[in-house]
């Protein structure tokens, strides 16, 4: 087996690029909305067969064991081609969690099934009344001998309708002094009686999120990860370099390039008003990309990311929003058509750009929360 980490970055990038170009289906590149599992299943099973489900996991657990630097290249190459995301919470969250905190039995049971996509995981964090204040969650897990009895409701659970399992933060000690305490981390099989999954339609007409109702769901204590009441610590510890990708310039770059296609086809670049606005945004994206590279260099050097990474998420998502707004204006009265706008040989879909930008300033910690974080942890302004 190749030791990928031995390759130079350039060689590694070239090989990954060649692999993706050869194997990743044309029609799935740069999708305009989040793909469902049935749409990407074939590709991810092929990748699993090739051993590429978990580039970041250690080799002894079935991963590729890439260094952070190589992982970044892998991700960059996927983004370059617009590879659709899988329902990948098992790979991103559950695997690393079990490798670090799980029992041998948990690892043995779940890791291989994550790698093969036999198990597909979703994340049971958010709740209807917790919003950005995750620690205020109210889902309750009561001790019942060798089981917990779980009651509550999760929401904004991405693609729960495609998942077989969900990891859940639930309150096991309602009397804990701080709301962050008394929360435990449970692994839940979605086939367990008492679970109802209801997709939520978003305003663009897609069903990316779900509500998940838990009604007296019996979860074996063997499915507790780590110590009881220690779930919050573990959930926080898992926030790794993935935070970088909340500030990725890819969405903005893609949106700008779609707008460019439209503008070129319609001759808008000859209009100084449009050109000035477009250039302003092009420079906003350029400086975002430069900053992203600078944070990526930190990751490559193995340095941890600080709280300052939050500014990238703010700037990236708000730039995306401004591009989408300019596109909407540029298309004028045609902007309303759901099937997109003619742009020479291509079609550009300004409505999708616009709808896609809307949630980016909300999810992954709303931009208001990110500003709170920066004010406190980076600017250290007394509160």
């Amino acid at each position: 087996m190749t030791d990928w980490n031995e390759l130079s970055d350039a060689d590694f990038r070239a090989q990954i690029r060649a692999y993706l170009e050869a194997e990743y289906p044309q029609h799935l590149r740069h999708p305009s909305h989040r793909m469902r599992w049935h749409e990407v299943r074939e590709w991810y099973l092929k990748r699993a067969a090739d051993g590429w489900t978990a580039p970041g996991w250690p080799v002894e657990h079935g991963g590729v064991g890439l260094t952070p630097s190589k992982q970044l290249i892998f991700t960059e190459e996927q983004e370059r081609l617009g590879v659709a995301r899988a329902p990948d919470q098992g790979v991103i969250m559950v695997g690393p969690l079990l490798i670090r905190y799980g029992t041998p039995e948990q690892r043995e049971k779940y890791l291989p099934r994550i790698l093969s996509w036999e198990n597909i995981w979703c994340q049971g964090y958010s709740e209807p009344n917790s919003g950005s204040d995750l620690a205020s969650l109210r889902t309750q897990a009561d001790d019942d001998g060798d089981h917990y009895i779980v009651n509550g409701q999760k929401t904004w659970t991405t693609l729960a309708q495609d998942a077989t399992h969900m990891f859940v933060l639930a309150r096991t000690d309602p009397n804990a002094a701080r709301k962050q305490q008394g929360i435990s981390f449970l692994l839940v099989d979605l086939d367990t009686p008492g679970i109802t999954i209801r997709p939520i339609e978003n305003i663009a007409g897609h069903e990316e999120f779900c509500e998940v109702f838990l009604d007296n769901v019996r979860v074996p204590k063997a499915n507790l990860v780590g110590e009881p009441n220690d779930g919050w610590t573990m959930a926080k510890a898992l926030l790794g370099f993935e935070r970088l990708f909340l500030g990725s310039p890819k969405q903005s770059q893609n949106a700008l390039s779609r707008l460019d296609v439209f503008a070129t086809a319609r001759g808008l670049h000859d209009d100084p008003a449009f050109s000035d606005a477009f250039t302003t945004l092009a420079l906003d994206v350029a400086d975002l990309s430069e900053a992203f590279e600078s944070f990526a260099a930190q990751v490559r050097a193995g340095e941890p990311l600080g709280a300052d990474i939050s500014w990238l998420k703010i700037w990236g998502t708000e730039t995306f929003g401004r591009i989408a707004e300019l596109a909407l204006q540029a298309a004028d009265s045609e902007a309303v058509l759901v099937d997109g706008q003619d742009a020479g040989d291509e079609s550009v879909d300004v409505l999708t750009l616009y709808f896609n930008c809307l949630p980016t300033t909300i999810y992954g910690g709303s931009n208001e929360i990110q500003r709170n974080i920066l004010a406190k942890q980076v600017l250290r302004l007394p509160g």
Partner: protein
Amino acid sequence: MSAVLSEANPDERRMLADSVAGFVRQGKDNNGVHRARAVKAGASPLDRETWQQMADLGWLGIAVPEASGGLGLGVGELAVVAEGLGGEAAPEPFVATAFAQAVLAGCDNAELVDELLGASATGDTLLAVAWQPAVASLALDELDERLEGGRLTATRRLVQPSGADVFVVAVRDENGLALYRLPCDTPGVTVETQTQVDGHAVATLVCDGVELGAADCLAAGAVGEAALLRGLCVARVAASAELLGLADRLFTLTSDYLASRKQFGAQLSSFQVLRHRAVDLYIQRELMRNALRQAVRAFDSGADLVAVQRAAARAKSRCADAALKIAREAVQLHGAIGYTEEADVGVYLRRVIALAAWLGNATAQRREYARLTRAAA
């Protein structure tokens, strides 16, 4: 309080506003938001029963002369109804109908105009203006497909409502711009549809050698052009009023949400950043009201065409711009739920996007305003 109530006919307009408010809120299972969701899911925006009720209340004849069976009222009254309908996101083609009626009102084929307006006011005949060329420009001089030898081969884009019984079609002939009556079932006419963000179908009217006789001519030359231009102004003001209604409700939904929802142990409305953003939305709404008020006044005071065009462009640019700002912030301030169909925000947002773009968006209207201002200087 509606923006236009405090000016001409305040009492009558207030009564009308109350009547609209009562109408649109009737029954939870068939209110405006409910019907708008149904349209998004594929239903026709024209709920025949609702449309007939609106006709019976006289709303479809507001700006139709009394002689043609209407109420003979003005743009102020149209705005009152449009604002009220916007407040409940009602999907009915009220402003599109007002557009067609206003165009007709400027035409000089009195008999034909009278017949069409009368049938429109009763709700029996649905009208639509077909005027934008294939590349959906706003400039009338880009309408370059001509009527030749009494036959028209041309394409007209973004026509609403797509299910109109009769189109008022703008054509070029040797005398300039002319307007013709074109029933939807005329041989050679094909109506293709595209779906709009709010679920409404918009039509592309394809005319392939369609015969347009002198009897169908509504107005020609300068009269025809003025009729279309003035009709566009009425439509833009009515759309501005509907945008105000939509934005006003989005603002209320949002401030109510902030006041009722808790996070980090405190009401959202206690966070200063959110309070100030709510204030900024309030300011945007106030600006819409002011821009709309001056536009209605321009009509009330019988200003000339250029003054009315400027006032309409000003109202539409402000209302399109502010409504989009308010709608976008409403989603953000609602958080994740604002991005779902659980909340009503999306229903309003989609209608705002549609109306903001209709007949020229904020950017286009500002250019129109600048053009008219410089031409007048």
